[in-house]
């Protein structure tokens, strides 16, 4: 066997100077040759850590072996046994925190590029044209309603439909996909990929109802009359604001609003698409997560000359993935660390003109283990801006809890659900993903969906709560 290369096979991508002028995806993905080369770096451990490192327990060495042997068809089939959204996960999963973190190769070298290989197989299958539909399972005569067509709900649907249950999905917005569609930008996750994966569910027999705000058009109790079980995957859709003076000035967006305008409503194609977005020359994004990176990079593509991220700690504490921070830096996003807005100042017409920031220093570690930012007195500074985006997080959307009084919620408004089965305090109702845990990642929502699907199946078979 040839010596394992120390580094991951590089993935070609659009040069930063070009890509900030378009909305096309940044990395191009592997060619079959590159994928095979990378797959050969996997040493097929007897006791692979990567499988346990994956929230949905994909047989990672298994699919990589198929790639190395050029059996792409077998590879994708094996991959899809555990993961309904490989094209999505291959792009947006934090692999460096999960499967790749525990890869043995990674001890001395760069780990095997598991995410890139996953993406390769999914993209390869899509390019082959018609996707194979598995034979229809024996019908169970049980019906399941899924509320919220995001990563958690999609995962539940994929499993329970394969086990013979009838599945109807309800989405509040006019397009399915949840955060994959309204939140994650096109240049990071092309929407066509998401829609194709959902279309695949439809081909498996899942019915999709968009424009359906459950809690308003139908209550959970009404759904329980029609369905044997319900899964709530309504996500973390309540944006946090800083609660500082001037935050309601024009030109200040929540990350949700900014990204929804840009992505779901396609404001980047304005005026062909009629939803406008303020295209400021100087845009400041507040926050240090992946969502903040998405906002700052979107601002550049909308024509910002200066896109600044204001974060109250340092680069080391930023919760965003390294890859996202790296892409943002390459594209020219400016990072203003150890700063936090204290106020926004506007003009006579109530448009934001300046952000006033407090300077911070790092103190003792807090509950999250990260060093707490402490304000430095009398060190405020101001920056001229045209647009501000508040990307400091979201709480679970309160619409379902507020219209379903007998469902138990936690102190953040999250629906309390058993992490192993997804069971809530209300018989027949399961929940998972951000609505239960608070804002987390796509793959964790999918992991919760996997477990809830098993919980639902068991309940449908036994009736035991």
């Amino acid at each position, binding site marked *: 066997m040839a010596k394992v290369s120390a580094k991951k096979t590089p993935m070609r991508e659009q040069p930063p100077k070009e890509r900030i002028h378009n909305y096309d995806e940044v990395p191009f993905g592997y060619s079959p040759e590159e994928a095979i080369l990378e797959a050969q770096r996997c040493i097929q451990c007897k006791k692979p850590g990567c499988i346990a490192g994956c929230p949905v327990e994909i047989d990672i060495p298994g699919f990589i072996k198929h790639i190395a042997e050029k059996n792409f068809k077998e590879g994708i089939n094996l991959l899809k046994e555990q993961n309904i959204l490989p094209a999505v996960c291959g792009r947006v999963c934090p692999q460096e925190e999960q499967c790749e973190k525990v890869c043995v190769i990674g001890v001395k070298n760069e780990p095997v590029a598991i995410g890139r290989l996953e993406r390769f197989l999914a993209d390869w299958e899509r390019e082959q044209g018609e996707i194979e539909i598995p034979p229809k399972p024996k019908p169970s005569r049980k019906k399941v309603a899924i509320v919220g067509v995001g990563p958690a709900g999609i995962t539940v649907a994929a499993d329970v439909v394969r086990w013979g249950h009838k599945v109807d999905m309800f989405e509040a917005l006019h397009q399915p996909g949840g955060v994959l569609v309204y939140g994650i930008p096109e240049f990071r996750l092309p929407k066509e990929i998401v*829609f*194709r994966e959902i279309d695949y569910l439809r081909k498996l027999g899942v019915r999709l109802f968009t424009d*359906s705000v459950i809690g308003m058009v*139908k209550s959970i109790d009404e759904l329980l009359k029609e369905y044997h079980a319900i899964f709530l995957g309504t996500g973390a859709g309540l944006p946090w604001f800083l609660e500082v003076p001037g935050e309601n000035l024009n030109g200040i967006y929540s990350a949700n609003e900014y990204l929804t305008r840009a992505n779901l409503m396609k404001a980047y194609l304005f005026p062909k698409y009629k939803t406008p977005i303020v295209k400021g020359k100087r845009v400041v994004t507040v926050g240090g997560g992946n969502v903040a990176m998405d906002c700052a990079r979107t601002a550049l593509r909308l024509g910002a000359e200066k896109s600044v991220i204001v974060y109250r700690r340092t680069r080391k504490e930023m919760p965003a993935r390294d890859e996202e921070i790296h892409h943002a830096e390459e594209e020219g996003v400016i990072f203003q660390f150890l700063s936090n807005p204290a106020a926004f100042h506007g003009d006579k017409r109530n448009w934001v003109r300046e952000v006033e920031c407090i300077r911070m220093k790092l103190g003792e570690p807090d509950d999250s283990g990260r060093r707490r930012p402490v304000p430095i007195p009398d060190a405020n500074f101001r920056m001229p801006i045209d647009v501000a985006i508040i990307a400091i997080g979201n709480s679970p959307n309160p619409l379902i809890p507020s219209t379903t009084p007998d469902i138990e919620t936690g102190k953040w408004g999250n629906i309390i659900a058993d992490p192993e089965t997804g069971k809530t305090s209300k018989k027949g109702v399961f929940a998972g993903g951000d609505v239960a845990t608070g804002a987390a990642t796509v793959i964790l929502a999918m992991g919760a969906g996997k477990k809830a699907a098993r919980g639902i199946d068991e309940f449908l078979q036994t009736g035991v709560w």
Partner: protein
Amino acid sequence: MPNLKKHSMTEIIERKQLVPNVHTCTIHAPDIAKKALPGQFIIIIPDEYSERTPITIADWDKKAGTVTFVFLEIGSSTHRLAEMQPGDKIYSCTGPLGQPFKLDKYGTVALVGGCYGIGGIYHAAKALKKLGNKVISFSEARSKFLLYWNEKLEEASNEVRYATTDGSKGIKGHAWDLLQQNLKEKEKINYIIAIGCTFMMYKVAEVTEPYGIPTIVSMNPVMIDGTGMCGACRIVVDNQTKFACVDGPHFDAHKIDWNIIMSRRKAYLEEEIISQER
């Protein structure tokens, strides 16, 4: 790209111009008709390219499964809606959304409607009258030929008072002028609801505040999702930020920061002009 929308389109049963720039539209939406309550709204996207447009529900028929709304043709998306004909499919229609009016027996209730709000107060008038209130509706427009649903409103209310800026029907002036005159003449009004353009609602609030009459206005800020997800529709009430889509759209008119709502509503005027030119 696969079309994932095709099963959720909404058919137009009727669409006609009531008066210049104001249209009524009836759609087949049985699920919404079943749940609608006075004061709630829907979000319409006329075609794939349009904005998500919040519109107050004016009437509904549970048996027929229809929902009727009145809208002002003002931007490119409502312009597109105004072009649509019976049989056409609306790309997206979501609802009912928002909190309904808190309807109770208040005594004498004044309902003030202007523009699309004349349609907006219609169902509240019916419901409040049924609860035993004396319902006085105020209907206002620039001129007589811009008033609509006069007979419907007269049937739904105990009395309808008209105000036109040119004096062609009712008093010469605005509904708030008439309301002020009535209150000065010591008419006893226990509760007021106003729906229409922001300036009208602001003026109504200004008129009623010295008299301490509870006044509810139906806020119409820019919205996107309508489920509390984006915060575009945030307004300040009693020094607290509220989302009009889920906390409202009805708020205590005397506690609203009018300055913020007025400027936030105008945020996209330039873009609207560009959008209409293409």
